[in-house]
Each structure stands twice: as structure tokens, then as C-alpha cells.
């Protein structure tokens, strides 16, 4: 037997693709866990169709899971793949264009029969596996279905059950290819099918068969070795954005002795936050699946009035429905966190695809002058920090706070050096100090020097009072229709939010130097692509820098000064230039938009290419 040649690489991009029922997400998830345990840095991107089970074999039904792992710091799931695993013809058809020249294709030949070729719209049933159209790639065409069926003959399972194991064959094969052990997945399978050992053993057999097939199959000339990354010392786990966000809410409530109340209505891609939180009842978490989006927001307002850490989560269409209630929270000045896991819009738009087009909705989308803080998460693990910080601001400044995530960070995952509970911040919860009385009357809108009123909760003796959505008189909170008072209150509410800028960190430069020729300014999930692009452009000799915003309203107080030190500011966003508008408006800077609205994240190359168009600024020096 010919020994395969080991090839060492810094990083590799793999894309698994197949029907949405092929277990692609699970396969990708398992590969992720294994290489993480091995010590690689990794970034993942699951991409699935909106339909739960689109017709089998069709282009619309293709589900994908992309990941980049490496011995170096990994910021994105990668632009183009080194390895493409396809379970059928449709999966190849859709993804081939993103495979690097000379890249590896692992194809299940059973998914390339006449029926599948036709469904994938290959002209006249031309089979790419045999017509030499893939000659520029390394093709490994294997009848995975047949081999899995052979291997599991003795199990006496139905054909359907056996065929469900074929993703494990693929995974075993890929483990071999990347010199990884299948042990972790074996453990996972045993645990997952605790109650059905026969299914467990069948899956393990398929996994081992795939692994051994790689080991004994002569056709494979290369076996990759990716060394462990040199991540900072500490404890890590894998985390996706929605889970990180949910954990932050539990952590914020637990650390500060507040009850957590999370009200939500099912919506993609935010529902997983509800699912995750509903599992943690031992922390006293109250999850409430409301009758609609409005009810979820209003129940949260009720819970906030009742003294809980109140949160409602949704995606763009749901946030639109919550708008009036969020305005009420602004008016009441009650703490509350609203999470928007953004997806492609407008209307129902692209429910399973990612976009950043709700920024202006977040900042401005309410009637009247209704300012509130807006924060954005830049990566899966950053969802934890941002959600925790949002809870802090809500409670310490008595205001609703909006958190922007998106489908990309919500479903994507990466290693997370998780914090210890003792290192988490404690909140300064405002309770009445006793000076809020005039003639023994409690003044619910008596404020401190930061315009923050105390958080008084029904049940507290001696503080009964009424709040409402009508304009209120300063301090007393009595209904007031007086024009001068209204203007004063509008100003106070605005200043209260502006003052939050004094209680958040100064903006730092993520990469590059102050005064660079070109600043790439980003927010949210574009972080990885911008960071990688900036790194590469600097390596290529350009004077560029990257600033990534977490605080979108109010901006950090030094941001304007910082921005003005750069000759040119360019803003890549998965929208038509919404942050660009805010920056121009606030700082009178000629920021230029780099826009992409395809339901997919930016690739590093796309950002580099667009930034290079502003090279004239780089050449001035």
C-alpha cells in the first residue's frame, strides 16, 4: 500500500453540502468540536434553506456547513474552500464556483444518478463526475450510500435508517483526511443515542468504516496535518452566537440577583435563544412564549415593572411589531433588553440568510423622539459580552437597550475563552435613596446627576405611584400636556442616553495605526472579514486600519476625533450604507459605503477589492 504524503497547512476551509435531510449541520458541528478539542482555531458558517424539507435533490434544498480551521488565528469561515464534500449533484452545482482551483471534491456517486442530475439541472443529464469537467480538481467519487449499506448489513435496520448513517461515513473519511481521531464523535454518538444502542453502534460503524476507507484507499495521495493553534492559555468551549447571548442573560441575572424573564415569539433566526433559555429553569429563568411579538415585548415591560431583568428577542419583522412597546419602555424609563437577530429584509425577506439592514430601525424606528442605546455583536463569542453589557446599561441607566446580532453570528460558532463568574461585572442597581420625596409624596421621576430615576417595584411600601405612556411632568410624573415641559422632558430623555457615552469604553483601533490612509470602519458580524482583509492589506504594504464598533448609539465619546485622523473612511456593511449615513450625519465625514446585500457575509477578497478602489488616498503619502 502506498503511504499518503502528509501535507502541512496553516489553515483549511471545508464545505459540507447535501440535502437538508442529510445531516450536514450535525456533520459540520462534529468536525468543529473535534478540531477544537485538538486545539485549532475555527470559525463556522451554517447555511441552510428556509424550508425544513425542500424537495430532495433540488437546488433549493441544499444545506451547507462551512468551516475554516487552522493553526493560526481564524476570523472567518473562509472565502473559498479547499475541500468540498457533496452528497448529491445539486450540492456540487451550487458550490463548485467557490472551490479553489485544484481543490478536493469528495462526492457521493449515489447522489449523481439520472434523477439527481436532472433535479440539479445538469443539461441532458451530463454527469460531471465522469465527463472530465472536474479535471482541474482532485475528485474522489465514492459510492458512500452503497458502502454504508454494505457496512451496516448485519444491523437489521431499515434502508432509511441505514441511509441516515451515511453522513457518519463521510465524517470518518474526512477525519482520516485531516489526521483527526473519531473518538470524540464516538462519544457524542453514544450519548445522543443512549436509548437506542443499535442506532448508536450503526452510526459508529459507519464512522469507522469511513475512517478505515481513507486509511486503506490508495487513491488518496495527500493527508493534511494542521497543527494546533497557539491560542492564549485558558479554558475554551465552542459557542454559537445565540447560545452565547442566552448564557449572558442568565449570567447577568444570576450575578446580580435579578430574576430573568425572557418573552419571545417563534421567529428565525432568534428562536434558539428561547430554546436555550427554556432549558435553564434551575437558574429560575422564566421563559414566556407569548401569543405574538407585541405581547412578548409588553410582557417584558410588565416583568420589568415587576423588577425582573426583562428581555425580548426577535428578528426584524418582530422588532417592527414591538416598536410601539419599545417606545413605551423609553417613555416609562424602565430597564429592558431587546434583541434583534437580523435576517434579510424587508418584510419576510430571507428568513435564513444574514443581513445588517436593521441598524436604522434600531436607532430611529420608533414614533416621537425616542432615543435608546444600540449595541452590536461582532462574532459568536462577542454575543456574550454585548448582551451582558446591554443588561448592565439597561439596569444602570433605566432604559431599554437594543442588541443587534444577525443570522451569521447567531448560527456561526467559534472557540470561546469563557469567563469565570467571579470576573463578571456587578450592576449598580438604582433603588430610591430617600430624597425623592416632596411633602411625603414620592417623585417617581426624580433623577440623579445622570438623569437616571430609581427602579421602584410594586410591593415596595411607601412608593406607590403611577407611570404611563402619556407625557409626564418633570419629577412628579403627573400627566402633563404643557409644551415647555414636553420639550424639557424630550431633552432630558435624550441627554440621559447621550450621557451613557461617559460610561462605556473609549473606542480603540482593532488593527493598524491612528492616521492610516484608509480606515475600514465596521460594526457587527463583518468583524472577521474586515479584520482578515486589514491584516492582509497591511501585509501587502497598504496603510490601512480597522475600527469595529460595538456601541452604535451613543457612539463612544472619542470616536469623532479618532475618525478624523484618517484620510478616508470606508464602511463595509451588509446593507445599503446605514452606518455610513449615521457617521456622515454625526461627524460630517465623507464616509464611503461598501455594500453587500446578498444574504451572505462578505468574503475577505470582496472587502480587499473594494478597499483598493480607494487606493488614491493611500498614494497621497
Amino acid at each position, binding site marked *: 500500500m502506498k503511504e499518503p504524503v502528509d501535507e502541512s497547512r496553516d489553515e483549511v476551509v471545508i464545505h459540507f453540502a447535501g440535502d437538508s435531510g442529510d445531516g450536514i449541520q450535525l456533520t459540520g458541528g462534529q468536525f468543529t*468540536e473535534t478540531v*477544537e*478539542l485538538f*486545539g485549532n482555531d475555527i470559525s463556522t458558517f451554517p447555511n441552510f434553506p428556509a424550508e425544513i424539507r425542500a424537495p430532495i435533490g433540488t437546488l433549493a434544498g441544499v444545506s451547507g456547513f462551512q468551516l475554516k480551521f487552522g493553526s493560526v488565528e481564524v476570523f472567518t469561515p473562509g472565502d473559498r474552500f479547499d475541500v468540498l464534500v457533496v452528497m448529491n449533484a445539486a450540492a456540487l452545482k451550487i458550490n463548485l464556483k467557490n472551490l479553489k482551483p485544484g481543490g478536493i471534491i469528495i462526492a457521493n456517486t449515489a447522489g449523481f444518478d439520472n434523477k439527481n442530475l436532472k433535479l440539479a439541472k445538469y443539461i441532458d443529464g451530463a454527469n460531471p463526475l465522469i465527463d472530465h469537467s472536474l479535471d482541474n480538481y482532485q475528485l474522489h467519487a465514492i459510492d458512500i450510500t452503497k458502502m454504508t449499506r454494505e457496512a451496516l448489513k448485519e444491523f437489521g435496520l431499515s434502508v432509511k435508517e441505514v441511509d441516515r448513517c451515511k453522513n457518519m461515513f463521510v465524517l470518518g473519511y474526512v477525519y482520516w483526511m485531516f489526521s483527526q481521531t473519531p473518538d470524540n464523535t464516538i462519544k457524542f454518538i453514544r450519548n445522543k443515542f443512549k436509548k437506542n444502542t443499535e442506532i448508536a453502534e450503526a452510526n459508529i460503524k459507519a464512522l469507522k468504516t469511513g475512517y478505515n476507507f481513507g486509511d486503506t484507499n490508495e487513491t488518496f495521495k495527500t493527508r493534511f496535518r494542521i497543527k494546533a493553534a497557539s491560542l*492564549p*492559555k485558558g*479554558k*475554551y*468551549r465552542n459557542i454559537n452566537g445565540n447560545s452565547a447571548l442566552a448564557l449572558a442573560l*442568565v449570567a447577568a441575572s444570576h*450575578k446580580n440577583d435579578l430574576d430573568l*424573564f425572557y*418573552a419571545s415569539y417563534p421567529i428565525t433566526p432568534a428562536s434558539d435563544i428561547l430554546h436555550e433559555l427554556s432549558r435553564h*429553569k*434551575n*437558574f*429560575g429563568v*422564566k421563559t*414566556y412564549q*407569548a*401569543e405574538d411579538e*407585541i*405581547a412578548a415585548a*409588553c*410582557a417584558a*415591560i*410588565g*416583568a420589568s*415593572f*415587576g*423588577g*425582573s431583568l*426583562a428581555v425580548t428577542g426577535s428578528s426584524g419583522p418582530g422588532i417592527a411589531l414591538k416598536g410601539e*412597546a419599545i417606545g*413605551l419602555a423609553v417613555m*416609562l424609563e424602565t430597564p429592558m433588553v431587546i434583541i434583534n437577530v437580523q435576517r434579510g429584509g424587508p418584510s419576510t425577506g430571507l428568513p435564513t440568510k444574514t443581513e445588517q439592514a436593521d441598524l436604522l430601525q434600531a436607532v430611529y424606528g420608533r414614533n416621537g423622539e425616542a432615543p435608546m442605546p444600540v449595541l452590536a455583536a461582532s462574532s459568536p463569542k462577542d454575543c456574550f459580552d454585548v448582551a451582558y453589557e446591554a443588561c448592565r446599561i439597561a439596569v444602570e441607566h433605566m432604559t431599554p437597550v437594543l442588541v443587534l446580532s444577525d443570522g451569521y453570528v447567531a448560527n456561526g460558532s467559534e472557540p470561546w475563552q*469563557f469567563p*469565570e*463568574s467571579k470576573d463578571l461585572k456587578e450592576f449598580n442597581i438604582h433603588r430610591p435613596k430617600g430624597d425623592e*420625596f*416632596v411633602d*411625603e409624596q*414620592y*417623585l*417617581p421621576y426624580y433623577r440623579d446627576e445622570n438623569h437616571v430615576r430609581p427602579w421602584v*417595584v*410594586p*410591593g415596595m*411600601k*411607601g*412608593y*406607590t*405611584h*403611577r*407611570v*404611563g*405612556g402619556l407625557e409626564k411632568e418633570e419629577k*412628579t*410624573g*403627573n400627566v402633563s400636556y404643557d409644551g415647555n415641559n414636553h420639550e424639557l422632558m424630550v431633552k432630558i430623555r435624550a441627554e440621559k442616553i447621550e450621557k451613557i457615552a461617559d460610561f462605556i469604553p473609549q473606542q480603540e483601533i482593532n488593527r493598524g495605526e491612528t492616521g492610516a490612509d484608509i480606515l475600514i470602519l465596521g460594526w457587527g458580524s463583518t468583524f472577521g472579514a474586515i479584520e482578515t482583509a486589514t491584516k492582509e492589506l497591511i501585509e501587502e504594504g497598504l496603510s490601512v486600519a480597522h475600527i469595529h464598533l460595538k456601541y452604535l448609539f451613543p457612539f463612544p465619546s472619542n470616536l469623532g476625533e479618532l475618525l478624523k485622523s484618517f484620510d478616508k473612511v470606508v464602511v463595509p456593511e451588509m446593507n445599503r450604507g446605514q452606518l455610513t449615513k449615521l457617521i456622515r450625519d454625526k461627524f460630517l465625514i465623507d464616509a464611503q459605503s461598501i455594500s453587500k446585500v446578498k444574504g451572505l457575509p462578505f468574503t475577505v477578497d470582496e472587502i480587499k477589492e473594494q478597499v483598493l478602489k480607494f487606493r488614491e488616498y493611500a498614494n497621497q503619502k
Partner: protein
Amino acid sequence: MQTKNKSNGHGETLTAKDFATDQDVRWCPGCGDYSILKQIQTILPSIKVPRENIVFISGIGCSSRFPYYMNTYGMHSIHGRAGAIVSGLKAVNPELDIWMITGDGDSLSIGGNHLIHLLRRNFNLNIVLFNNQIYGLTKGQYSPTSPKGQISKSTPFGSVDRPFNPITLALGSEGTFVARAIDRNPVHMREILSAAHDHKGASFIEIYQNCNVFNDGAFEEFTDKSLKDQNTLYLENGKPLLFDNDSKGIILEGFKPVIVDMDSYSPDDCWIHDEEDKIKASILAEFFDYTEERGKLPRPFGVFYKNQRNTYEQVFQDQIDLYRSKREADLDSLLSGNNFWEVK
């Protein structure tokens, strides 16, 4: 909004006046709302709940100004959403004594969804729906309870909508306490309010309330001295259905209610009201539809239906308590998960 901070209800005897605020009541003179405010302020001292544990939450509309006039905790919220707000409040704070104040537009139109789910979930709280069959605060449009043909600002040629029957809606939403009262019968209203408060579960009270500016006389047949006896039927549990000074009774022929002359029948022949019988409650609710053409039946007032069922907040809390007893809440192990690794 401010509060006189003198008496807090602990060991003190409060009176109706203690529940009034310093705010001027701004309903139109002669409005039926005054009576409801007065009756609620009157019964509150007797319910023996500390003032700081009482919360009034309303939506938007004339009725929804109510919390401003109650010296308790309160929130005047947004149109239709009081039902959702009280749900969240009760879910996190089960010991509060919550009163939701709403109207026919607020809870049967824009907030309809919240009302039905509030009743279905059966939070232990009180829902007081002021039904005046008109939008008053927006100055006179027909409402979801306005009768067909109602002339209003938005229906100058008469409304073409069929009106809601709030009692039927409440029963259909699995309400566990469903009652009707009327502004002009304060004694009866207080009885119903007290019974509603005593009920453990979501208590729904529809109160007919005259809007003397935009819909004056909507309930005249139930309040006018010469008309009310023949048109109203006051329900009492375990008692026969008698009305018009006991001169008439109701018997059931199968499922059909029939009016009989008590000269020829004894009270024992009559339908005996059973609050816990939902089928009979449904028939009583349908009296609403027996107009002149169908053979007019009197309008019932009182408790149509009452039954005990687990409250949402109780089951909600029980589940949490169960899982708290089963698994320790260790934040560090939650943060680390089961599959963490260490980079050394």
C-alpha cells in the same frame, strides 16, 4: 404620578378615600366611569391587600385613565396591550393583586389577541372591561360591541359589522370567571367585583357603561325605571331564573330558554342557575342574541360561569421550583458547558 405616603395598609384601616389620588378625575360629567371608580375604591379596603401590592394596569381609552385615579401602583400603557403587560407582571410577581382596566375598543378590537390568551392562561387577576359600545376618547367611532346599524362618526349610514358578545368570547377563551355588571347598579357591581377578586384565576367582568356624550342611552333598556325590570335578569347561584319582580321565570325546553308566567309555574320549575355549568353558561351568554325577532329574552347580569383551574403563574413557578430542586444553579458550570478544553 405621586402618592400621599401616609397610610400603607399595614394594620391600618383604609377607606375608599385612601385609594383616591390628588389628580383631578377628567372624565366627562355624567360618565358611567365615575360609578365604576367609586365601586372599586369602595371594595378595596375590604379585600385586605396592602396598598403597595395592588396594581392597576390599563391600555388606552377613556376607561384606561383609571390607574391615574387609584392610589396604588399603576401603569397606563398602550392601546390594547394591558393584557400582555399584566401577564408579564403576574408571571414574575405572583403575589401582586392585579387589576386590568380596559374597554371594548381596547380589549375586543386592537387587544383582542391578548385578551383571549390572558383568559386561556388563567393568571390570577381581575379584568374589568368597560363596555360603552363606542370609541369615546377618539370622539365617537363605532366599536366592536356597537350594534349593527349604529350611527357614528365613522358609520354615518349605520355600521354593517356584527357586534361581539364579550361574554361568549370570554367563555370561548376558557375564562374561569365570567360576569356582567352595569354602571347604574352599584350594589350589584360591588358584589361582582368582590366575587371576581375572591376567584383564584382570571376574572372577567364586562361592565355596561354609559357614554353620555357619544352614545347616550345605549343601555337604557337595562337602566330606565320603566324598562329595566322586564329586560334584566339577575343571576344568583343556586336560585331560579326569575325576573320582572319575580313575575316571570325562565325554563329550559331542551336547550331552548323559554319565558314563562310565574302565575302558572313555581320557582322549582325554573332553570336553577349553576355557576359551574359551562353549557348553561353558554346558553345564558346567548341571551344576547335573542332580539325582538327571535323572541326577546332579558339580559343576564351576574356571574355566568365560575370554575377553578390551575393558574398560569402557579404552574410556571412550580416547574421552576422542581428544576431548582433537581439541579444546582452553578453559573460556572453553565458557562463552561460539558465539552470545554484547556490550552496550556
